[in-house]
């Protein structure tokens, strides 16, 4: 109902970029995220303390920069800053890897379903609907219980339950793109279906896919942290934020620093990822001034 002026055309990509740049909050979130990721990656360089090393003279001691433990130590005397950064590497790695898995499955499933249409589409999306009703966490836990807790399985398992949204989005995009004239032209030119999907459909569905991928990463990190928190995730000697938070909760009253730092990192990362994803979504699909 609002009146928009008719202006000379601007490419939607440029429009989106401009809107994103104006979104200060989203950009700040992106910067914070980059800082956290950098810190975790460069951890060993910035703070060369092995996460597993025990400092016998500083068991469960509060944060003390002078003594070389800016975040304090845990009940076993291990430096929390080092463990937090190491845990961050694991959590972020699982996040990215699982998102990648869900991306591959989701994009493949969605684009095939959307492009094929008809019966095939109906069946494929019915499967998605059925699976959608199931609570992911429980099935991942089942997998962990039955098949052991190695890290490869964790991110395959998580990725395998997180692809549903992506499939829906990609299918929707494919359906709209399918009708565009140049797809007809490609088909008339003799291009096979697989090639059309790969070369034309997928690149054009990219926008929403990027948005949802950005929003999937925090969901996946959350799931992994949850598993680890309950004791069903990564196992020693590896650690992740979830494990650290679990330890922190157990020692919450006596050593709150064990909880505060890893929890803060996790919360900040998830917050920024969601914020950034929201910003991307608003930039690409402006509905709301």
């Amino acid at each position, binding site marked *: *109902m*609002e*009146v*928009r*002026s*008719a*202006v000379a055309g601007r490419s939607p990509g440029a429009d989106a970029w401009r809107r994103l740049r104006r979104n200060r909050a989203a950009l700040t979130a992106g910067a914070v995220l980059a800082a956290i990721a950098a810190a975790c990656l460069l951890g060993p360089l910035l703070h060369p303390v092995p996460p597993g090393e025990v400092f016998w003279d500083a068991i469960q001691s509060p944060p003390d920069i002078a003594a070389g433990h800016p975040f304090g130590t845990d009940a076993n005397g291990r430096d929390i800053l080092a463990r937090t950064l190491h845990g961050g590497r694991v959590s972020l790695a699982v996040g990215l890897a699982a998102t990648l898995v869900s991306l591959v499955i989701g994009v493949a499933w969605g684009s095939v379903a959307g492009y094929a249409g008809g019966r095939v589409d109906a069946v494929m999306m019915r499967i998605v609907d059925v699976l959608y009703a199931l609570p992911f966490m429980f099935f991942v836990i089942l997998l962990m219980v039955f098949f052991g807790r190695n890290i490869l399985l964790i991110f395959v398992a998580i990725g395998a339950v997180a692809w549903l949204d992506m499939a829906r989005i990609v299918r929707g995009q494919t359906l709209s793109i399918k009708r565009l004239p140049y797809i007809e032209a490609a088909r008339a030119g003799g291009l096979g279906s697989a090639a059309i999907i790969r070369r034309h459909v997928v690149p054009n569905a990219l926008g929403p896919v990027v948005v949802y991928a950005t929003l999937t990463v925090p969901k996946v990190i959350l799931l992994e942290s949850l598993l680890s928190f309950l004791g069903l995730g990564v196992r020693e000697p590896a650690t992740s934020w979830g494990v650290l938070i679990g330890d922190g909760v157990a020692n919450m009253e006596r050593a709150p620093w064990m909880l505060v730092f890893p929890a803060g990192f996790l919360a900040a990362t998830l917050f920024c990822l969601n914020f950034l994803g929201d910003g991307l979504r608003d930039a690409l699909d402006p509905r709301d001034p």
Partner: protein
Amino acid sequence: MDRGTAPCRAGPLLEVSGLNVAFATEDGEVRAVRDVDLTVAAGEVVGVVGESGSGKTQLFLAAMGLLAANGRASGSVRLGGEEILGLPARRLNRIRGARVAMVFQNPMTSLNPYLRVSTQMTEVLRLHRGLSARDARRRAAEMLDLVRIPDAARRLDAYPHELSGGMRQRVMIATALLCRPELLIADEPTTALDVTVQADILDLLAEARWEFGTAIVLITHDLGVVAGLADRVVVTYAGRIVERGPVRDLFHDPRHPYTRALLGCVPRLDADVPDELPAIPGQPPASGDPARGCAFLGRCAEAGDRCRREEPGLRGLDGRDPAARASACHRDTAAGGGP
């Protein structure tokens, strides 16, 4: 069924003076309505003709206080002598639906899909006339009968999606007439409907005018719609009025190039069918505000030098009162213009 009681007034029912409507958008200010003067007398039908973007709808939305959030109106709008532009919502609400009613273009989306027709009709009567639920329902059913909806009592309990487009528009008109308003603003009431249904709706409006004495503003882009029903016509272009006059004058002697072009576009029953449907080349100006000169410049077959430099004002034709018969064109010598 009581007859209309539109009081005989000395002055016009609706008087719009110097109305400007502007919208604040990402790309700057868009002026949708520029300096418009308009009157509607009690019981008369005024056709407001123009293409999309001409400001014809925004003009009346502003009068009703229904502009979008980024819109600003300035000027004066008087109803029965009272200034209503800029009134606070509380006072405006006593007028809207009771003394002035509006029917919108798209009956598909203008009715609330989640509520029954009865709710959407009776609420008007209960609000403005203080009727009980039962009385309101009875009156609503009577009105549905009046607008020729078959099986009115049952239809009353229907949901909008159970009705056809034509029926929905009738419901909207019925709802608008419930309080016997003095003025009914019909915004493109037939545009979204089949041609066969259009005639029925127009007949309905004509009946409303005779039954209740309601003045009607008929906003449309279709000249054919206006011909049968309107007493006077106002032609809008790029946010301004470019010609106005009694309907016969306009059709027999159109003076503004735009009006002439519009009439030229309508295929005639009594002429040979042309090879190509005539159309007006070009587009109306984007922001509703031309940089300089006449807004119709790029599309006018008769443009001259002065048209490029100066925007023509609305001038009385043939020595008549500009409020009755006027055109805004430099080329019309009878309007005091010149080459």
